[in-house]
Structure formats: structure tokens, C-alpha cells
């Protein structure tokens, strides 16, 4: 419990910074949306563009003149921000002890290594959930002046759940990296590599139908905003896949961390 509270406090600053960035992003975007709101001419153009073109600009399947369509377009940015934040929190929360040379201290406390990891992981999890809630509430406030209908709020709720799911996947991957990497510096740079690679994969998989199979390797594609928009729910198969990744990463993290030589 002490470790949990301590980690929450230590991560508070980072959470605030991320939230401010997110708030700025939403404000800029919503101010831009005002140019699109309810303009039928724009819609006509969007309808006539071929799919590959739209995919390349990640504008497919959305009616940008409605708030829901616009938020659908925003989703990739929410996912990206959430993923970066979560992966950083996940890997840092474990590896920083070795970096700051405090690991000797935290491991001579009368708690098992597993409990240390649990407390830290829970603190990072709370951070992720708070980040989604903050994004959600900023969005609600930002779009107020457009008087959105219930359908938009439902879609927003769905998007936020999907964002949380993406965050959780990256959090679990980050935790595993933090637990497993012998050299703490590698944890951070591997996390960067994974984020960049999965982001690129998500773009590649949409560009060309023969590369479609790549979508199973990138969490950004598991919860594609246009699919969310059409079906109104998250795909069960992908939810299961994400849950699988999360469980495997977390379990592996515990196993490795319990056995590992720590860098002192």
C-alpha cells in the first residue's frame, strides 16, 4: 500500500503534463472542427474520394461534418497518446528504481518482489484510467457548444473504452520490458521501438489489402475507429487477443522479475 501511494504521487506530475498536452490537442482540434460543422459541400468531396487515398490520410468511413465522424478521426491520436503514455509509465515504474539506484532500498523492505511489482503496476494502472477519464471529461466540455446528441456521447464512451484497452496493452508490454530488461536503458528505447513499429504497421496494413494480416500485430488496429463507429461495439476477437497479450506480458513480467539479477 505504501509503495502504491508513493508511486501514485511520483507519477502525478507526469500525469498532469500528459493531461495538459491532451487538453491542448482537443482544444486545437475542436476549434478546427468548427470549419467543418454541417458543411454539405465538404461531405460531397469526401464521399467521392477512393478508399486508398482516405486510408492514407486515415480519414476513411467518417462523415467529418458530424461530431461523431470528427471524433472518429481523432481516435488515432488519442490511441497514440495513450499508448505512448502507458508504455512509458509501464516501463519506467519498474526500471527507474535501477536507474535511480534505489532498487536496493525498495527490495530490502519486508515485501516480496511480486508485491512490489503488483503495487507499482496498480499505480500505473490507476494513472492510465485517470488519463482516459480526464480525456473523456475534457472532450465532453470541449464539444458542449455543438449540442451533441446522445449518439455522440455513446460513441465517445465507446472510443474511450477502446483507448483504455489500447493503453492497457501498452502498459502490460511496458511492464514486461521494465521487468525483463537487464539494462534499464534498454527498457525505454525498446518501448520507443515498439510504439513506432506498431504505429507504422497500422498505417501499412491499411494501405494495401495484401498487408491486411499485419493488423493482428498492431494494437492501434484492434480498435479501428471506423469499425467502432459502424458496429457500435468493440470486436470480441480483438478484445480476447488484447486480454491474451496483457495476461502473457504481466505473468512473464512477474516470473522474470522474481528471478532476475538486479542491476546495482
Amino acid at each position, binding site marked *: 500500500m505504501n509503495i502504491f501511494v508513493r508511486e501514485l504521487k511520483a507519477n502525478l506530475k*507526469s500525469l498532469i503534463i500528459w493531461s495538459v*498536452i491532451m487538453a491542448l*490537442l482537443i482544444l*486545437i*482540434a475542436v*476549434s*478546427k*472542427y468548427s*470549419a*467543418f460543422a454541417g458543411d454539405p*459541400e*465538404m461531405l460531397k*468531396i469526401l464521399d*467521392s*474520394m*477512393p478508399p*486508398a*487515398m482516405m486510408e*492514407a*490520410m486515415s*480519414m476513411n468511413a467518417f462523415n467529418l461534418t458530424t461530431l461523431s465522424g470528427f471524433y472518429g*478521426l481523432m481516435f488515432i*491520436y488519442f490511441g*497514440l*497518446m495513450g499508448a*505512448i503514455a502507458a508504455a*512509458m509509465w509501464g516501463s*519506467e515504474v519498474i526500471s*527507474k528504481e535501477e*536507474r*535511480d539506484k534505489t532498487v536496493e532500498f525498495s527490495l530490502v523492505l519486508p515485501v516480496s518482489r511480486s508485491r512490489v511489482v503488483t503495487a507499482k503496476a496498480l499505480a500505473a494502472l490507476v494513472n492510465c484510467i485517470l488519463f482516459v477519464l480526464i480525456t473523456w471529461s475534457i472532450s465532453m466540455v470541449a464539444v458542449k457548444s455543438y449540442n451533441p446528441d446522445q449518439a455522440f456521447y455513446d460513441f465517445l464512451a465507446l472510443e474511450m473504452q477502446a483507448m483504455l484497452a489500447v493503453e492497457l496493452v501498452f502498459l502490460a508490454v511496458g511492464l514486461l520490458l521494465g521487468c525483463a530488461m537487464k539494462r534499464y536503458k534498454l527498457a*525505454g*528505447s525498446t*518501448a*520507443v*521501438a515498439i*510504439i*513506432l*513499429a506498431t504505429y*507504422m504497421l497500422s*498505417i*501499412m496494413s491499411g*494501405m*494495401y489489402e495484401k*498487408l491486411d494480416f499485419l493488423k493482428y500485430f498492431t494494437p492501434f488496429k484492434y480498435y479501428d475507429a471506423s469499425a467502432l463507429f459502424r458496429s457500435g461495439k468493440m470486436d470480441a476477437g480483438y478484445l480476447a487477443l488484447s486480454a491474451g497479450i496483457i495476461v502473457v506480458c504481466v505473468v512473464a513480467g512477474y516470473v522474470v522479475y522474481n528471478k532476475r539479477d538486479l542491476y546495482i
Partner: protein
Amino acid sequence: MSATIFKHEFRTKLRSVLIWSASVAFLIIFFFSLFSVFAEQAALVNQMMANFPPQMRAAFGLDKMDLATVLGYYSFIFLFVQLCLAIQAANYGVGLVSVEESELTADFLMSKPVSRTQVFVSKLLAALAALTLTNLVVWASSFIAIELFRGDFEYQPGTLLLLLLGIVLFQLCFLCVGLLISLLVRRVRSVTPYGLGLGFGAYVLNGFSGVFGDVKLEYLTPFKHFDAAAMVSERAFDAPLVLLNVAVALLALALSYWRYIRRDIPAVS
């Protein structure tokens, strides 16, 4: 300038440079191998686009993007290359001098008979050399990819050279801004969040401008200063924006130098 420091810095970065270069080269060649698929589809698009009024095309930035040409498609890939280069440069910048403090090696370095100016300059040059190495790989793989996959399509090598020449300024800007940020905060615990934040932040800001028309804030991001799509259609640098970019880089560099010379570097206790 101290050769020892330069060599040491360059050597520690070499691994990271190799990994970045390999990934960027892979990215360019892989994306470009899809060119033929796109070129077919894009030719249809262009016919259709011609029917729309020019203001509408401008609103979406479509007047500048033409995926049916070699360079039009290349400018589309180039954005992702820039993203990688930006993160790499920002990482190097943030870590350049702060790494000594976070790794507790500052005492050792500062007790050597070299001035801080020498330390600063040698480190900076080493980072620039490392970035230039990646830059060269981008040059080489771009030309190779285009020659391999362009098929019967023609392109203007001059414009391509222009895009590639912009990279060094683009890297310099992220390097210097990253360096300045690392010297403005009290203590950099870990380089990656700063580097990622700077790189992706600038990228997202640029992405917004591409899709949603006009807001002035985009002029802050180097991705806009070296907007490949615009450069391909204009066949020239956007001079005021490039100057702005260089000015930002130099200002950040000067401020960083000033901060570093006066910095209170904590000793290991």
C-alpha cells in the same frame, strides 16, 4: 573541441545510429515497394480531383499531394521518415549533456582539463556526426528505393535532393530544442519520454494541419517547415519557414550554451 570526447561520444551513439538507420532504410524501401499499387489507384483519383473547384482541393491539402507520381508518393513516405528522424534527433538532444548527470559521470568529466565550452562543442559535433550518418543512409536508401521500384515513372532528381537537403536542418532543430529542454528542467531522469513527447508532439500538430485546414499554430512544428508535399509541388523550400526553423534552432543552441556554461552541476554525494 576535444578529440577524445568526440570519439567517446560518437562511439557510444554508434549502436543506436545503426539501429535507427536500419529501421529508416527498411521503412523507405518497404513503403516504396508498394508504389505501383498506389500509382494505379491514384491516377483515378487525380482524374476525379480535377473536377473539383481548386479552393476545395486546397482546403484538404489535396492540391499538393499526388500519389500517382514518384515524388508525390515519396513525400507521403517522407513524413514517416521525418517522424523517426525527429525522435532520434530529439533523443540525442535531450540526452546530450543530461546523461552525464543522470549517470553520475558529470564529476568525472568536469574534473578533466577541458573547458565546458570544449565539452559542449565536442558533444554537439559528435551528435551531429551521428545524425549525419543516419542522414546519409536516408539519402542512399531513398535513391535505391526509387530506382528499384519506380517502374516507368519519371521524377525530378533536383526536387528529391531538395527534400533530402532539408533533413539536416530538420535534425538540427530537434537536436537543439531537445538540448534546450534538457537544460531548462531541473533534472532529466529519463531521456525517452522527452524525446518521444517532442517528436510525436510536433508530428501530431502537423497531422492536424494536414487534415483540417488552417490554424496558425502549425508554424511551430518543423514538420511544417519541411512539408514534403508542399516542397514537391513548389519545387523549392518555403524560404520564410525554413529561415524560421533555422532561427529557432540557433536560438535554442545559443540559449543551451548559455545555460550549460552557467549550470550548477550536482556532484555525487
